[in-house]
């Protein structure tokens, strides 16, 4: 899909911590290999058991809106024709304990409610700097 905030909007700067999240074409959540707890954003150490053994869990991509803030005032010039847009914090059904920030498609910003079910979709964009194809997780409203 096309980017919610426009093709020219900022991209994530890829690094070893976020490459899987933004390029795998799956919803990826960091999981501890020892205690199996999830955490996001990725961290160098498990925040539950302090293990360094961490891996990427591939989620089925179903989630729930835990909070929503509708942006009416664009704080960057290139977002002036994108407002209002909704920022959501989404909990992931099969990776409890984390929240993932995103936008929602398929529903007007002011109609999005806490508790709404959403499923992951991906913005696809070529990242000229890294030469990689990005798959940026976003959320589709589930009817």
């Amino acid at each position: 899909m096309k980017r919610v905030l426009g093709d020219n909007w900022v991209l994530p700067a890829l690094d070893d911590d976020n490459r899987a999240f933004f390029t795998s074409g799956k919803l990826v959540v960091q999981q501890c290999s020892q205690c199996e707890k999830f955490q996001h954003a990725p961290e160098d150490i498990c925040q539950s058991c302090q293990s360094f053994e961490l891996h990427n869990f591939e989620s089925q991509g179903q989630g729930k809106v835990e909070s929503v803030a509708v942006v009416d005032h664009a704080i960057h010039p290139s977002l002036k024709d994108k407002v209002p847009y909704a920022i959501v914090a989404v909990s992931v059904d099969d990776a409890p304990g984390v929240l993932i920030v995103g936008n929602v498609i398929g529903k007007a910003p002011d109609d999005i409610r806490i508790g709404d079910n959403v499923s992951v979709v991906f913005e696809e964009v070529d990242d000229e700097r890294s030469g990689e194809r990005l798959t940026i997780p976003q959320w589709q409203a589930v009817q």
Partner: protein
Amino acid sequence: MNDKAAICGIGETVYYNRGDSPHTEFQLACMAITAAADDAGIAPDEIDGFVTYSDNRNGPTRLSAALGIQNLRFAATTWPGGGNSVAGAMQIAESAVRAGYANNIVVFRAIAQGQFGRFGQAGGSSGMGGGYMAGGAAFSGPYGLLSPAQRCALRTARFMHDHDISQEALCDIAMACYANAQSNPRALKSGKPLTREQYHASRWIVKPYHLYDCCPENDGAAASIITTAERARDRKNKPAYITGAAQGDGASYSTLTPDDLATSFYTPVAENLWGYTGLEPKDMDVVQFYENFTGAVLIALSEMGFAPPEGIEEFVSGGALVGPEAKLPFNTSGGNLAEAYIHGFQLINESVRQIRGTSTCQVRNVEHALTVGGPGYAPGSAIVLGASQ
């Protein structure tokens, strides 16, 4: 450590709308500091320590040279962050004075955004990185989550949802600050009272925040001087004793998690502050709460223990925060919203005035005055000042 510490001098510049200061930021800092020294009855070169927070532009060696200080004995700052650390900076100075490492420590904050660009804005000092955002911002910036207002709005929206809180509760916070500013000639919103109708008619910034829920950006500086209680008693103004200060953070507070979404990060601050001082919210005669955003204050009021979340809307309603006779005298100088946004340091000075009895919205017989730092960012911090040791 035997003796308490006390604030013996306060000072500030004229406050300006953003970009209107005729002085450089460093000049503003020096003006506030020399005013505080004068208020304390000491010469500027008797200052022997500097502490600040969220400020890497007005450093201790530059200040020492400017003020003729021959023996700077203590310099420190909190971790980088924002107004969450305002009372944390006071705590550092208090600890150093009580340990005997310095005698007259200045804590201050200065800001001139015309000179240096805007604080707390994407595209400002943090930058947009030429179309890329890195580190933690990589997980938020591409989704248009850029500003402190947007971050705090996500937390406030969930708090309002969980506890059935209406927009009127946010309005009550804003209206109290504007009302209390009307008697304060320093306040930028003096002469500009706010009505409920004006509040609701103002544009949305990010729902649930209207324009009036968000603190303005201002230029100016404010400073306090901290010394031992013994020395403070010999100075020209009544000491404001530091009863206790606290910082606080919780295990999962560095990231957004479902369990800690609707927080302002002040539950651990409350536990640490009330535990350290042996006091309770009901012992506070007057309170100053750092308002970056009204909704974040509502959460902080609740987390500090003034009312449970489900009762917080009723607690702030009906003018309960307005005026010196209020049920809870609150932001008596107008706060960040209506006096000036000097990253909350002007709140410390207002608490000192309440202890001295010199506020323009003076509460009677103040024994304890609470100042609470910026909500929604961690570690949070808070400080209690006392009229007696």
